[in-house]
């Protein structure tokens, strides 16, 4: 590749963090699309302007999503990225791979695409960056032959994702990987054939540490937790103390509900005060563990800022057991979708619909019992609605 081709981007070859520019250049030597891709990016760096046209709607047979259409606005100058669509390939639960599987993906992408990828997109998919329209179906066929399928895009169920969970984490209160896979398989149709007012995301975290940012980034967050008291191994507590760890300052004082007491070398819990925040467990993993009665809290509504502000998911079920076949959960999801699909406006996330129509309508429609765990605090206004059957005849 000619040295002067990307003078601005070349600056990003410097510095200790791995350089995507170096890597793209390497790829560009083998693949003209990768080279044009970098050249087009250089053009954006010069112009401070994106050089992709608006939109693009392409796909593969039988699916309404999974491929993002993209066309350069300078097709003459950058012919190899004239059409430059991306695949969203559904990752295995927890982002575990064999090198065999990964190499297969690479091979397919070497054949049909630019050779550039994201491991992973922020929803969780493998992103294969840039293929021409004519290669789409063939590429998909090859993916499928190699055991991979596409994830969600458009107004559908987006690829669910999950933290590493029981595969490598002592905190996991639910089997995040199994649940993620099970839901993904159960809702293939919902993932592949957009049919709703807007997107719907599910993310699964094994405990309240929420290592997949479920509460912030998914319409439906499944977060493992427990019901009984957390478990304390007093011997291990002593070991921490002996090792000079500041139990009072770094653990007890930081408990948000002051549910812990450290006295006479013993760490005592007032179980009914603990809100399962994980902090003490995080700090003393050898001594503390979640309780035995494990399950998940279900939260709804999380999303980014468009249109009505960003929402964090909020609690709708404080505790549900999470055991295969997860029927209670699946039924609930279906009832939620049904209500949202029936009532939502175009591009209205489920959280926004609840905001618009009120929790009372949502809870009634999906059959959930109101509990105080759903709110930080009750309403401060007196604008209470009454169902007609609750009041006598007017006058």
């Amino acid at each position, binding site marked *: 590749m000619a040295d002067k081709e990307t003078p601005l981007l070349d600056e990003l070859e410097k510095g200790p963090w791995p350089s995507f520019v170096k890597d793209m250049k390497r790829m560009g030597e083998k693949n003209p699309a990768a080279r044009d891709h970098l050249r087009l990016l250089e053009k954006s760096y010069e112009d401070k302007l994106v050089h992709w046209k608006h939109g693009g709607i392409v796909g593969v047979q039988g699916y309404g999503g999974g491929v993002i259409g993209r066309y350069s606005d300078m097709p003459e100058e950058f012919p190899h990225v004239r059409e430059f669509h991306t695949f969203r390939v559904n990752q295995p639960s927890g982002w575990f791979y064999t090198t065999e599987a990964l190499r297969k993906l690479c091979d397919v992408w070497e054949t049909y695409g630019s050779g550039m990828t994201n491991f992973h997109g922020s929803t969780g998919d493998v992103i294969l960056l840039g293929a021409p329209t004519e290669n789409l179906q063939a590429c998909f066929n090859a993916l499928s032959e190699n055991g991979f399928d596409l994830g969600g895009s458009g107004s559908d169920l987006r690829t669910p994702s999950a933290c590493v969970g029981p595969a490598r984490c002592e905190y996991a209160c639910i089997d995040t990987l199994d649940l993620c896979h099970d839901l993904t398989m159960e809702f293939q149709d919902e993932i592949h054939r957009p049919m709703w007012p807007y997107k719907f995301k599910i993310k699964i975290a094994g405990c*309240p540490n929420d290592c997949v940012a479920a509460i912030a980034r998914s319409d439906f967050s499944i977060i493992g937790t427990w019901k009984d008291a957390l478990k304390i191994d007093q011997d291990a507590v002593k070991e921490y103390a002996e090792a000079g760890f500041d139990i009072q300052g770094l653990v007890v004082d930081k408990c948000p509900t002051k549910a812990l007491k450290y006295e006479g070398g013993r760490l005592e819990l007032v179980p009914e005060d603990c809100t399962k925040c994980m902090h003490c467990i995080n700090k003393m993993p050898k001594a503390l563990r979640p309780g035995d009665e494990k399950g998940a809290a279900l939260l709804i509504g999380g999303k980014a800022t468009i249109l009505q502000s960003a929402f964090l998911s909020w609690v709708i079920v404080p505790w549900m057991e999470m055991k295969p076949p997860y029927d209670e959960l699946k039924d609930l999801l279906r009832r939620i979708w049904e209500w949202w699909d029936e009532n939502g406006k175009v591009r209205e996330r489920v959280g926004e619909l609840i905001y618009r129509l009120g929790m009372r309508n949502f809870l009634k429609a999906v059959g959930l019992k109101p509990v105080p765990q759903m709110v930080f605090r009750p309403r401060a206004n*007196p604008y209470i609605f009454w169902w007609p059957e609750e009041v006598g005849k007017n006058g």
Partner: protein
Amino acid sequence: MAKVVAKTDIGPPHYSNMLPPIVKENYGKWAYHEILTPGVLVHVSENGDKLYTVRVGSPRLMSILMVREICDLADKYCDGYLRFTSRHNIEFLLTDESKIEPLIADLEKMGLPVGGTGHSASNIIHTQGWLHCHTAATDASGIVKAIMDDLYEYFVDMKLPAKLKVAVACCLNMCGAVHCSDIAILGIHRTVPKIDHERLHQVCEIPTVVASCPTGAIRPDPKRKSVKVNEEKCMYCGNCYTMCPAMQIMDPENDGVAIMVGGKVSNARTAPMFSRLAIPFLPNNPPRWPEVVEAVRNIVDTWIRDAREGERVGEWIERIGWERFFEKTGIPFTEKHIDDYIFSVPTFRSTTQFKS
């Protein structure tokens, strides 16, 4: 109509003419205060002067006969000076400590309680109700009397965990401090206004009526020269009635009272807080509203049992969590407790931190 027109814009009497001499002399020079006994304060000034205050519970609604009797006492014990507090209590201002006892004895004879200081339940901030207002969903003076009869022991003593500020407002206009009180009793409607279509266009401005509705439930009905109400959107606030007499909102069968808790105004410790819904509805049961009195008592009792020294109702609830508040008081939590108005979303629990 009287023909002599009065002088206008003279403003209120100048306060300096109303201050007892000891106050004038020590104005801005007070050093500290103490509560001697419930209802009796002493303020000590930098130069050692002492001002004694005897605080007396008042029904607020008073005849001139009663006002004059109070004046008699102020003449007798306070050189003709007195004041009222921001919660409508009467304060007798004395310089002579020895007069406190006789004053209290006279007050007792009149049936006026001394108290309301420190960790007590002070007077109830309230409004007009059926006594004088046109939009009232309940009465004020009657409920206040019934509740204060019940909380009497907490007015005349200081045995609560902290101050207790109760308020009553007889409709959603909330002419009082209902939105920021430890415990608040609020008159509410529960049915959609009945429209008098004949009268409406004569006595009301249609655009104003339409604009008055916070939820946009009212639409013009040009055919009838009137308006129509989308019943599903109406939350019975009565604001359309305020703007238009032809939108009758009163409904004796269904009007009643809601109870809110946990508000506060002072900036001490926590920022000021709104009161929040505890009980969505209790019936209007004059003359003594027993359900309301009992509900208030239950909340107060639970608070007394459970709160730590110095914890206002709201601070107590925020410490234990609302889930525990409902558990401990036995008040049922319903969908009605969940906000569905403009600022609802930030009240939804967006964390897995909760008590099971």
